């Protein structure tokens, strides 16, 4: 597959390492009362859709950026690629 890296342009997906659903960015608050349940669902449950899927790829033999790729799991068509850092910030993550 080809991932169109936002900085480096199209690169063979074999340069990347796949982690999983981009929901891994939304790590729960460790201090909420429902932390145990939140962390269980965060760590173990997945939508695993047959269709558009936001997922995390690491540019292992490239620039060591994490990317959030939006890909159709039926056709493998990729419709969007962003730096994970930007997505994380957009989802309110900071320090």
């Amino acid at each position, binding site marked *: *597959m080809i991932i169109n890296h936002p900085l480096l342009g199209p690169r063979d997906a074999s340069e990347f390492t796949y982690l999983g659903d981009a929901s891994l*960015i939304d790590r729960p608050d*460790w201090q909420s009362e429902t*932390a*145990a349940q939140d962390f269980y669902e965060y760590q173990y449950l997945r939508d695993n859709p047959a269709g558009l899927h936001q997922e995390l790829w690491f540019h292992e033999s490239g620039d060591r950026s*994490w990317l959030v790729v939006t890909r159709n799991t039926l056709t*493998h068509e990729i419709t969007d690629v962003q730096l994970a*850092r930007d997505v994380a910030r957009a989802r309110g*993550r900071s*320090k």
Partner: protein
Amino acid sequence: MTQQNRISGGQIDTSQTLKFTFDGKQYTGHPGDTLASALLANGVRLMGRSFKYHRPRGVLSAGSEEPNALVELRGGARQEPNTRATTVELYNGLLANSQNRLGSLKFDLLAINDRLSNFLTAGFYYKTFMWPAAFWEKLYEPIIRKAAGLGSLSLKEDPDVYDKGFLHCDVLIIGAGPAGLAAALTAGRSGASVILADEDFRMGGRLNSETFTIGDASGADWAAATVAELASLPNVRLMSRTTVIGAFDHGIYGAVERNNDHVATPDEGKPRQTLWRIYSKQAVVCAGALERPIGFENNDRPGIMLASAMRSYANRWAVAADKRVAIFTNNDDGHRAAADLHAKGVKISAVVDTRADAPRNNDYEVLVGAQVIDTKGRLGLTFADVRLADGSERTLECGALGMSGGWNPNVHMTCHQRGRPVWNDDLAAFVPGADLPAGMTVAGAANGDFSTAGAMASGVIGAKSALKAIGLKAKTTKLPQAEDAPINISAFWYVKEGKGRAWLDQQNDVTVKDVKLSHQEGFRSVEHLKRYTTLGMATDQGKTSNMGGLAIMAELAGKTIPEVGTTIFRPPYTPTAIGVLAGRARGQEFHPKRLTPSHHWAKEQGAVFVEVGNWLRAQWFPQKGETHWRQSVDREVIATRKSVGVCDVTTLGKIDVQGADAAEFLNKIYCNGFAKLAVGKTRYGLMLREDGIAMDDGTAARMAEDHFVVTTTTANALGVYRHMEFVRQCLFPDMDVQLISTTEAWAQFAVAGPNSRRLLQKIVDPEYDISNEAFPFMACGNITICGGLRARLFRISFSGELAYEIAVPTRYGDALMRRIMEEGAEFDVVPYGTEALGVMRIEKGHATGNELNGTTTALNLGMGRMVSKKKDSIGSILSEREGLNTDDVLMQVGIKPVDPSKPVPAGAHLMNLTGPVDADHDQGYVTSACYSPILGHHIALGFVKGGGNRKGEKMRLVSPLTKVETEIEIVSAHFVDPEGERLRA
């Protein structure tokens, strides 16, 4: 034997003669011949035996779709089973043997199966061989396996080498027939970067096999002229002998170039074949079409072939399939074989045409509305029986019969991403569907444009749409005039008359009768038909048989052909050598080797090396007189604990963590705290996965307020770095922290033992005080050594001894190791390897990969209290789950044999002293074991249920796999220096 079937013309070089042997007999051919054409030229029609019934078979086609003429090419280690004679370029001294026979090709004992074929119908083996049960492995299966299989491997190592490469282009054109050449001209002249690939060693496709003209030149000459123009364009790369094997995602294509299959042996260092990964923006598939046979009784005799193949042999290879030929066709294209061969003086017995309105000809007899109902000639066709339109019967004398059931567009590549072809009634064939892989257009016969003019025109259109899609403008390509006749097909799948042994899949011996049986027994989906009868599962993957099979199933099931549909087209387009898919990653180059800075020195010492991931590490350093590894390892351990030893520890992962929030970042990834670690101090860190299980451990040395050097285990270095980048970029994007790996930037050696300080004081420059007071346990700092070379020093100990780790830039690692050995001579310094390191860390009770095995928690490892509850860190919440904190949870313990002479092997399980020995009563297992020369007996680490309060308990260590059962005692994991006095000396 002279080449009695040679006729005039053809694209072969008769000025040169090539000698070759087939089944031990010497023949001759010419450059430009294939093995198949050369055999036919010499009157050899019998070339193989079918898979199941071992019926005699001749060549059916002239290309890579060949099901029958499979040979074992070459000999010795280079033997290639199942090689299609139609794709082997003849070279001098070529050696080939027929295969899949018991006895000779003429007298194959296994042909007995053909006599019993009524008992051996499709799927018979599912209904028998069940009694008596044990007989399957002992009797039935061995017989079946011995009889099955086709060609055989030499089982010697493949002596050839293979390359892999990567190509980029704007437009990839697959197939260099009329459509492909026209497309390449259009794209090439526009300046786009173009790759034109064709599986044949001569570009031109059908143009080299037909006799019609293009403009005022012959088709073949036009092709040659076009190839010459393309070769002159720097932006066009011509790749003949190159099969595009598959269409993968996003315009990536796999292609195999046969660099040296047309010579006896490649030159030294030259690859036999190259696997190219081609990144294309657009692709135009011009893969042509494959002609279909017709089903009729005994339509598989040697000499019966596709009409188009008969024309190829006549026009391209100047070979008449036989002195006297007949044709059986349901379309106009079939007639061309008769016309071409007649023009070359070959006797045409007759053209049998199923259509009542078939075109007549005054050069040879055309029997309209007629069908071939049977043939004669076991080892080679002699006669064909014909049912005429009026019902009467005729017998034609012929040594070759050309069949033309129409053409199947080659939709293979268009369906590699699960798209399905669609049925076209006028062509009576499947054509590419709309749901094509990204960036792909289809042109020429592959798209159903069968005429030459039609193919060339659609080639230009295909290239234009590809250029348009990448924003390039195409100059108009003026095409010369070419034939444009329709083939006027009327679908005709099989002759209904006859006992029903009409062959569809000639290699797997699937007949029309088998399709009927499959329908009768409920295997009606086209996928069930394929799997139950093995139709289309042979080495040609049904290229000439699938269509007939599914058409007949549609008829039986009362469905339309599109309703039955096709099975799935899968890469590779044609079978591909496993060697080329492995490329250069063979033998010692399977994975790269990572060498430590002291590797060369260690080799000079005669060290024994061991693989640790991709690293090679010294395992022990045998000295003269030592014959068993235990002698070397015990010596290394004792010498280190008694005086001083040195070990290369560069392979441990080292990561530079800098920035204002470096400490805060370490607090997130380690379960224990780092915020308050003083500069110049080091701390052990345990890293959890988010599920609360231990992931890795190591040390973090605070070199400055905003600079830590973090170590990881050798095995997890890559994974830990990736995890840290995930935490940095995805979880805490605003933290001011920067990471970079420095594993290979610093050569690092452990210097351990009571004399380690004295030794290092001879190396560390005097202005740095490394006494215990100035440089206590867990200290770290920047120093210089040997007169000013920058270095780093850490007071960390894996062996449990007084120890330092000293690091210099990698270029000086070799020199530092030699200096340490020189300066340490007075202390009898010894190098110690990973084995001795393992013994010492077990004696000390330090966990490694065997203990941090991905299922153990901080609590299991006896470090439960380290998981800080005062701060957030990866894994701390889920580490609190009830299942991980039961009161009988596994705990790390030391294990000692009650009888000191007994071993306590790793991998053994632990049982209570009394009671049953089974999984339900399993109390734990042994993770690491060794002989401790210090204690004089074997010791081990392991996990035991509720191990924390079972110290002193006697238990049974059992290893039924290695027949070991011994009594052991649970002890503290810290066998040596439990209080850690040596560390703080």
